[in-house]
Each structure stands twice: as C-alpha cells, then as structure tokens.
C-alpha cells in the first residue's frame, strides 16, 4: 500500500482538530489590547457627588478593580450580589463605573443611585460616565467588564462578562495578592 495515500487522511484529521478548537472558543472573548498597558486616564464625576472628580491617578500605589456596569445591564445585576461578597472580603477594592445606556436615556444616574441603595453597594467609589467615552477608551463592549489595575496604573487582567467565583478565586485573587507583594 502506498504510504502517500495516508497524507489526505492526516491532513483531514488536522483540519478537524483545528476546527474543533475553533468551535470551543468564545468569539466574544477577545484578547484586550490593554493588558500590560497603562490604564487610560479619565476625569469623571463621582456618582453621588458630582463636585468631586475621580481619576485613576488617585489610585497609584494600590491594586484595584475597575468594574464597568449599568442598571440597564442584566448580566451586571447577576454579578452584583457576588461583587458585594467580594467587596466584603476586602481583598481588592472595587471601583465602579456606571455607564450610561443610550443617547435617549438620561436617567441612568438617578437609576444607579436608587439601585445601589436598594441592592447594596459593593463599590468603594462609584464614578459616572455620562457619554460612555471612558468606557470606549477602555474598550468595553459587553458590560459588565472588569479591569485589575496594579500599583503603577497598569492593567493586568480583564474579565469580559460577569465575574464568577471561579474567576475571582483562581485568577483575580491570586494575581491581586501577587501584585500586592
């Protein structure tokens, strides 16, 4: 038997393996170009105190988690009780960016204040992004998204979609501990 006849079979198996790997990948999870780069700077009002401006520069020297969310975002509501738990553990301070929904909705700020009052507030500070510009600067496309930022203001980890216990315990916590050393 001609051994060259096996070549198409090997090629075919290779192709199948290639496609199988592709099938199991989530097309929504894109590698963020921000990883290991400086977290984009911004100056935004705090949700409840518009007079006070927050900037990531204030956070130099701390390891912190920046969480983009909105009251309109159902996956964020799903994540919310877990965030409260994580915040209680005091392992990493969580800062929230409340992201406005659409150009035709202007009540996001009030809605967010009410939501946090009712459901509990996991955030050390909540920042309000009225035009979504900061969210665009961070490349947010599927809220909630969370960024772990180190003491030098460099993004070290990004979670697209809700943080699960697995992600928190296996990725965020160990990395935060390592960065805090």
């Amino acid at each position, binding site marked *: 038997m001609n051994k060259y006849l096996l070549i198409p079979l090997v090629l075919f198996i290779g192709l199948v393996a290639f496609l199988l790997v592709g*099938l*199991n990948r*989530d*097309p*929504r999870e*894109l*590698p*963020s*170009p*921000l990883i290991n780069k400086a977290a984009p700077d911004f100056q935004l009002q705090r949700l409840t105190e518009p007079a006070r401006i927050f900037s990531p520069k204030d956070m130099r020297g701390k390891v912190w988690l920046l969480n983009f969310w*909105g009251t*309109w*975002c*159902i*996956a*964020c509501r*799903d994540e919310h009780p877990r965030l409260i738990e994580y915040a209680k553990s005091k392992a990493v301070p969580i800062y929230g960016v409340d992201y406005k*929904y*659409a*150009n*035709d909705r202007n009540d996001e700020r009030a809605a967010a204040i009410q939501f946090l009052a009712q459901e509990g507030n996991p955030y050390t500070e909540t920042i309000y992004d009225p*035009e*979504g*510009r900061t969210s*665009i*600067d*961070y*490349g947010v*496309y*599927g*809220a*909630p998204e969370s960024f772990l930022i180190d003491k030098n203001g460099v993004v070290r980890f990004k979670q697209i*979609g*809700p943080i*699960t216990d697995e992600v928190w315990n296996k990725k965020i916590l160990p990395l935060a501990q390592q960065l805090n050393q």
Partner: protein
Amino acid sequence: MKVQQPINSVKLCGPLCLCGEIPCEQIHHRGTENSQSFTEKSIRIFLKQYGLILVMVCGLLFSSFGFALAKEAQPNEDPQLEQRMKHLTEQLRCLVCQNETLADSRADLAEDLRKQIREQIRAGKTDQEIIAFLTERYGDFVLYNPPVKKTTYLLWFGPFVLLIVGTGVLYRYVKSRREKIKETPLTAAERKQAEEILNA
C-alpha cells in the same frame, strides 16, 4: 466542550446592544407577568400560533424601514464627510453584533463610536489615525481586513504556501507516473509474434 453558562444567553442578547428589535428587558419582563386577563390570554394564544409569522412580517417591515427608524439623526451637512465615514465604517466590525459592520450596526455602542469617528474626521484626523484609535481599544478584531504581522502570516501567506506545495507535489507525481509508464518499443521478435497472433 465548554459548558455554556445560562447567563450567556442574556449576554448574547447584549447589554449594550439591540441587535434585534426587541430590547432585552422586554424579553425579560414577558415571562414575569402574573395577572392574566382574558384578552391577555387570547393574545398569548394568538402569539403562540401566529407568533412566527408575526415576527417574520415585523422583520420585513423593520428591514425596509430600518433607516427611518434608526435613532441616529442622519447628518446631511457634509456629503464628503459622510462619504469618508461610510468608507471607514464599512471596514470596521461592531463588537456587539459581531457580524455587522460599524456602518450597519444599530447597537448603541456602534452609534457612540460613529459619533466619535465623525468628530475625529471633523478634527482633521487621517483614516489611519482613526483606525489606530479603534485598534488601541478593541484590538485587530475590529478590522475586517486583518493587518499583515507575525501572528497573521499563516492567514495571509498560508494559502499561497499551500498552492506552491500542492503544485510541487502534483509536478513530482505526474513526473514519476510518466517514468513508470514510459513507452518501450517492441523488439522485432515481439512484433512478429504479435502479428502472428493478430492474423491468426
């Protein structure tokens, strides 16, 4: 296979996005109503039976009136700007509805991004600068035309390599085959023998 978390179905519907015409919240609310008046019940039965047709008709209507319904005001100030805008956004991907271009998508994020691109065009930014603005944030995935770089060499040159290798293999195969079936003329004795057989 990775187990899909139930939350993904919500996520796919898209927090930032109205890929379809029904906002997620409305889908969400539909199942939670408790009061069931008679009319509600009959509407429900009607929807169950004719829902698909209704959805199809709505789909047709929406697709033909899509432009009129789009929330975004159509700026008619500067045709040149719009021309550039169209040219640019047609090669960019909307990240919320991943199979749509930034030009076509009605997701809120796409709308915001178009707004920013318009501003940048007005501010005199070049196309390259605007594309760089987007790739810095969302990565090369926003480009429908992937750039030529180390990680995309296989994508860009793989087909040509396959073509060259394939041509080589075919050439060698044909050559070896030709050698195998090379014509060897009959000797005089063989020819005589053959003639005898044929004439018998």
